[in-house]
């Protein structure tokens, strides 16, 4: 069954898709999210809103998505299993669909020890793969896990994340296959800096035929500085930034490093676009949303296709 997701339509019409993400504010001011939304209008097909990423409390993803939706933008609600048990997840899935959201990204979520509330009790009643199964069951079977019928099933396009760079490498394509089995329809990958390794990952993905069963958006994040590159390499698990990328940043005068970061990002998109099985780019410009239109423009991704999604 087709959803009303603009992203799904973009894929169906054979376009190379472009998504991005924006982090909600650490406060209740809706203008923050509106401003970010306005910056991104016309440059992407859909906008993820993160769900308390790195376990730092922010405005709820669903609420932020509803604000973007009101502006006529196409949000993707991110949902983590860290903070919700299956009762709460089912309820939020219905709520997201009820607010007119069309797509969901199913995640386990960063462990709470990374955030501002390391003393919190985590939930992890289910994991990200089981969340994919849950959304699919609710949508396609119109049933709750309890077996009870849903009055008005949630018609959501189902996504998930994938990190091709975390150990154990050889298991990552197989874990993607598990997500495909669960019913995932699109994947947004971790930021790709090591393109050689990503291409090897995609070789394995194609061998398993997964690229034909799921739309894979290659994740990219522009580096703002050599310092940011070094910090991410050192501190973010599963983040693979090759030394030559860091060297290119470090060899650039400080005031020009941001521009260099954009240049590297655009080059990456151009190369990733040629990889068989890559169906789109997911541009994560962390607290640098204004650069997304610039990157999209330079990478030749504009204009975005004019998709008229029928209203229900």
């Amino acid at each position, binding site marked *: 069954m087709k959803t009303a997701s603009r992203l799904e339509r973009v894929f169906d019409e054979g376009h190379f898709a472009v998504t991005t993400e924006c982090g909600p504010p650490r406060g209740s001011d809706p203008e923050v999210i509106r401003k970010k939304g306005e910056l991104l209008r016309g440059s992407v097909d859909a906008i993820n809103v993160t769900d308390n990423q790195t376990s730092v409390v922010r405005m709820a993803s669903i609420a932020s998505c509803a604000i973007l939706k009101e502006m006529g933008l196409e949000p993707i609600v991110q949902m983590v299993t*860290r903070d919700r048990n*299956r009762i709460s997840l089912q309820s939020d899935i219905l709520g997201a669909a009820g607010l007119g959201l069309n797509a969901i990204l199913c995640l*386990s979520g*960063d*462990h709470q*020890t*990374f955030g501002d509330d390391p003393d919190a009790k*985590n939930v*992890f*009643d*289910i*994991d*990200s*793969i*089981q969340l994919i*199964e*849950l959304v699919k069951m609710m949508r396609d079977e119109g049933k709750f*896990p309890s077996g009870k019928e849903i009055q008005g099933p949630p018609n959501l396009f189902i996504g998930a*994340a*994938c*990190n091709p760079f*975390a*150990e*154990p490498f050889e*298991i990552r394509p*197989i*874990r993607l*296959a*598990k997500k495909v*089995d*669960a019913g995932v329809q699109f994947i947004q990958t*971790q930021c790709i800096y090591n393109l050689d390794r990503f291409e090897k990952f995609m070789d394995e993905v194609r061998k398993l035929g997964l690229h034909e069963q799921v739309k894979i958006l290659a994740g990219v994040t522009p580096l703002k500085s050599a310092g940011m590159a070094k910090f991410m390499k050192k501190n973010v*698990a*599963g983040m693979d930034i090759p030394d030559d990328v860091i060297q290119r940043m470090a060899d650039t005068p400080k005031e020009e490093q941001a521009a260099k970061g954009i240049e590297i990002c655009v080059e990456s998109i151009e190369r990733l676009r040629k990889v068989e099985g890559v169906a789109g780019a997911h541009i994560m410009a962390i607290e640098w949303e204004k650069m997304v239109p610039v990157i999209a423009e330079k990478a030749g991704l504009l204009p975005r296709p004019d998709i008229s999604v029928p209203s229900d």
Partner: protein
Amino acid sequence: MIMGEQKPLEVILGMLAPYDKIVLAGCHGCVTVCRAGGAKEVEILASSLRLAREAEGRPLEIKEVTLERQCDPEYLEPMRPYLEDYQAVLSIACGAGIQFVAEKYTSTVVLPGLDTTFIGVTEKQGLWVERCQACGDCVLHLTGGICPVARCSKSLFNGPCGGTTTDGRCEVDKEIPCGWMMIIERLRSLNQLENYRKNLPMKSWKTSRDGGPRRIAREDLME
């Protein structure tokens, strides 16, 4: 075994402040093995408490006792004859033992001298590590004998998440090996990777603490 760790001395002294005559009760069970609440620890703790209280000019009288187990009713009986001569019992058994003492001696103040931490093993001398969360529905036959509930920081049933470091550690703490990395390596060496290929379904946590305090009733053993 059930692991425990003695509370800091100043915390124990704080709890004991109102009293000057106590029973310090150890246990010959698990907490003896993990060197936290056996006869030896009773002796050492009693000396430390006495010294500290003498320094304060408020001597503390301590009766030292180590019971066979604090989690079985018959082993709690030996305390009954003298208990009313004391104001409180400081137990350094696990949380089950401490509660059982309180339950048996309803008019006695019972204080915890130990924090009960986990069900674990002795990896090497002086190093104990968690292995089981007593979830009540074992899946070790599917996961190469390594528990995803206890060994994965997120208790994922279909891991590993993206947070495995290059040296196979959990991003939460470099001292924690990634549970799922171990599961996969073990399944591979057992030629059982097909177990991993299947998605494990949502777990019922009813058998875990989430179903409320648990009980096992064996009628064949009841008198």
